[in-house]
């Protein structure tokens, strides 16, 4: 560096962008703030979308929820692309070591045949659940309003692809990379009675238009029931007789679920507190989808957890009800 | 350079950031593609090649002295032209009807 500059004496003309100064005052902004606030276009749209001519390209009217400021729905993890990808890369690195450990020792293939069959029947089909969640999350990311919501929804979309692929790897660890378990579990997902309730609800979300309702149905309710049911209760039941080989791989999913929950909770809590109409809508969606999904999950819970299934589902639902009440969307729940 | 056997082939190219990581890749390209022409620009190297250009993992490893995953090219790749085919061993750019 040959350039000599008297930079010590140079004071910036401003400490942050104008739109950030108006929100937070004239002080240095974080990278999350710079990448998030007011980035989406909000005025003077040029053309009517051919796919939705009654609304603008970005339009608050794609949900019944209303907000004075859509940027109030911030992500407490403060993810922007850079810290999101490096966080996931680091987590993936640790997971790769676990996968490698399990694969080298053939830990899943060494499980008894009925346990392997159980994993194939009850865990591996969840790769399709995750792909459905990817679709639903993509819907939120595409049609929601404001970068504060759409950016984390985008990241969640990709996370779901990552989870679908991680669950697929569990299948490959069972079938020795032949892919047979993946083929079998796809038929299980599309045809087996145990799974039709859940698949039915995932497809119902595919035709739900209001993006905030999709958010509630998929990212709040369905995930809050599916993750603990399969990756805690079923996982514990499997571990009880077989050791922790599977748990070492589902742990990643639960950690991800807990991390994502911070974002989900913040969004819903803020939206519910905004006005009574929001609170009523969110509460209504919450109870409707909870009831549908609890019913949908009963058969697979019954067939895999047997006489523990009612207790397991009841525990999952009780935890969900407590969480929903805390978020302000649990008014209609028993 | 060499006498063209067919009609003039349409050029494919790859552009890489000019840095320490890409030197072995560029060397491997030169070695495996005798018709490649390397253009140097500020911070960037653009390599044109008539018809087809191949990057071989084994050649990169030879110049690099360690194992190399061809997907690592993406970290320093600026641009490409041509149809891509990627396997463990080769990354190929090609015009089919060149």
């Amino acid at each position, binding site marked *: 560096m040959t350039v000599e500059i008297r930079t010590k004496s140079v004071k910036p003309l401003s400490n942050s962008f104008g739109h950030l100064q108006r929100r937070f005052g004239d002080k240095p902004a974080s990278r999350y703030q710079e990448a998030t606030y007011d980035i989406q276009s909000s005025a003077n749209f040029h053309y009517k979308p051919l796919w939705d001519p009654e609304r603008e390209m970005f339009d608050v009217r794609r949900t019944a929820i209303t907000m004075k400021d859509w940027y109030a729905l911030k992500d407490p993890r403060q993810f922007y692309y850079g810290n999101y990808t490096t966080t996931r890369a680091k987590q993936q690195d640790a997971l790769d070591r676990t996968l490698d450990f399990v694969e080298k020792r053939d830990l899943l293939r060494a499980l008894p045949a009925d346990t392997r069959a159980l994993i194939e029947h009850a865990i591996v089909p969840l790769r*399709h659940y995750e792909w459905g969640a990817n679709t639903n999350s993509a819907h939120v990311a595409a049609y929601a309003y404001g970068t504060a919501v759409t950016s984390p929804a985008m990241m969640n979309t990709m996370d779901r692809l990552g989870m679908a692929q991680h669950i697929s790897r569990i299948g490959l660890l069972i079938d020795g990379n032949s892919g047979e378990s993946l083929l079998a579990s796809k038929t299980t997902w599309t045809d087996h009675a145990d799974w039709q309730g859940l698949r039915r609800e995932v497809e119902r979300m595919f035709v739900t238009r209001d993006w905030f309702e999709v958010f509630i149905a998929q990212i709040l309710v369905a995930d809050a029931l599916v993750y603990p049911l399969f990756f805690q209760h079923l996982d514990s039941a499997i571990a009880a007789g077989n050791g922790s080989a599977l748990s070492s791989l589902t742990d990643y999913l639960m950690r991800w679920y807990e991390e994502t929950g911070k974002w989900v909770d913040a969004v819903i809590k803020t939206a519910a507190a905004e006005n009574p109409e929001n609170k009523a809508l969110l509460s209504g969606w919450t109870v409707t989808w909870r009831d549908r999904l609890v019913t949908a999950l009963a058969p697979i819970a019954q067939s895999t957890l047997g006489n523990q299934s009612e207790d397991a589902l009841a525990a999952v639902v009780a935890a969900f009800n407590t969480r929903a009440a805390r978020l302000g969307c649990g008014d209609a729940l028993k | 350079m060499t006498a063209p056997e067919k009609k003039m082939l349409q050029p494919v190219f790859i552009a890489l950031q000019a840095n320490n990581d890409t030197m072995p890749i560029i060397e491997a390209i030169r070695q495996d593609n005798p018709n490649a022409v390397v253009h140097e620009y500020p911070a960037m190297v653009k390599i044109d090649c008539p018809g087809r250009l191949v990057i071989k993992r084994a050649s990169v490893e030879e110049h690099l002295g360690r194992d190399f995953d061809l997907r690592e090219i993406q970290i320093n790749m600026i641009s490409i032209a041509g149809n891509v085919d990627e396997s463990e061993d080769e990354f190929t750019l090609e015009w089919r009807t060149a």
Partner: protein
Amino acid sequence: MAAEGNVKPAKKLSLKENYALLTRGLGWEPSYEKHEEIFRNISFEGIKIHDWEKWEDPFRLTMDAYWKYQGEKERKLYAIVDAFQQNNGQFNVTDARYVQALKIFINGITELEYDSHRGFNMLAREFPGVGPRIAAQMQSLDELRHATTQIHTISQYAKYFTGMNEFPYQFDRAWYLSIPKSFFEDAVTSGPFEFIVAISFAFEYVLTNLAFMPWMSGAAFNGDMATVSFGFSAQSDEARHMTLGIEVIKFLLEQDPANVPLVQKWIDKWFWRGYRLLSLLATMMDYMLPKRVMAWNEAWEIYYEQNGGALFADLARYGIKPPKRAPETIAEKGHVAHQMWSVFYANRDAVGFQMWLPSNEEMDWMSEKYPDTFDKYYRPRYEYWREMEKAGTPFKNTTLPQLCQVCQWPCLFTEPDDPTTLSLRETEYKGETFHMCSDGCKDIFDDTPEKFVHAWLPVHQIYQGNCFLPDVDPTAPGFNPMYEALRYMGIKPGVDGGDFKGSADATNWEKWTSRPANIHEGAYTDAVRDTSNPSDAARKAI
């Protein structure tokens, strides 16, 4: 390890097999809801897809690999950005004129990356096939990356220079930023197939090399390590996107012969629209880089005429022809940058970046690069304007220009075969006359007039009184409509734009760096110490 004895070792998977197993089987044919209710946007354009499974993914990226390689790129990039900020790298660029180009970048381009992110997100939801949806999702996330890294890099400049602090606000309102804004909104408001042909193929594959490769190399040449780092790092994603662009075209063309004319129409439209948008880069390359790497016409020859030629030769087997208006772009390549600079110069009080007349050194460079056009048409104009500046009566345009209904540029271009006649076209639609800058734009308007009549044309909006802030009283004495319209647009009149010489940016630059704000004109102020100091000597020796 109580393996059952007869377990064969696990099969080793190739990259392709691994990708296929982890990806392609994820989707299923829904049976509880109707396919057309789930995927609502894929039939109205008339594109026929018979088998989504025929989609080929050239880069077989699973999410773990995506996170790994992109995380690595981000770590490298932010290490540079951090060092840049700590070392006040914004003062290491050639001079303060270069910074004016960054104003165009943050105000006009960053929001396009964001719109692109949202557009790909819609595809990521709406395409029925797993392969193309994942490709669209990864691109959507990449585009979010590009918007983010541009903001994070340029924010350091925005703290020290004028005109960069209101980029989202300006993008939605400034008259010349409706050019990029309307371009991307046109794409996003189209159907998913037109969008992907427009952006992935016509824009990314055919045109963006031309903009970003020489431009970013130019940024490096002018000492802007932060911009060149995000630029090249972003381009490494573009290489994947471009490959998506060519795969999508081949997929559409192979699926059904009825797709060919639709794809051809979109190629013709979006090539022209993309070319008009990138004309801005023409003037940035030729006039705003104090040290130049390549002229616009050279870039056009390499990246369109040569590489585009190879591409369209490859696509000829499907019955696809080169873009209809490509000959005009070749005919105009010696003019477009100069005509655009002239218009910006004339309207410099109404833009958010500062303008200057080219120095002797620069004009000599242009004479050399543009032997057939520069000395004949443009040098005399600049020399005349320079005389007017010297005489204290600098040339200025005081009325707002007529805008093209399609590309939204002022109608500033000349006839492709006659650089002395302005190119003006018009069409009557439902009793109203609409103005276009060229045959290319008129083709587009005439094909879908019902779309383009809705364009938010800033000059029309100003004349209709729609571009004033709520505190403004147009009946008050001394009301200045131009001043008020600029305030509405987020432009600080007399600060962000106007003449470079005497501007806050030029004056601050000399005060802060002790180097001339314009390396070709020597010092404007006393703040510049010895212009032959060692750092300048080192700089000149590069």
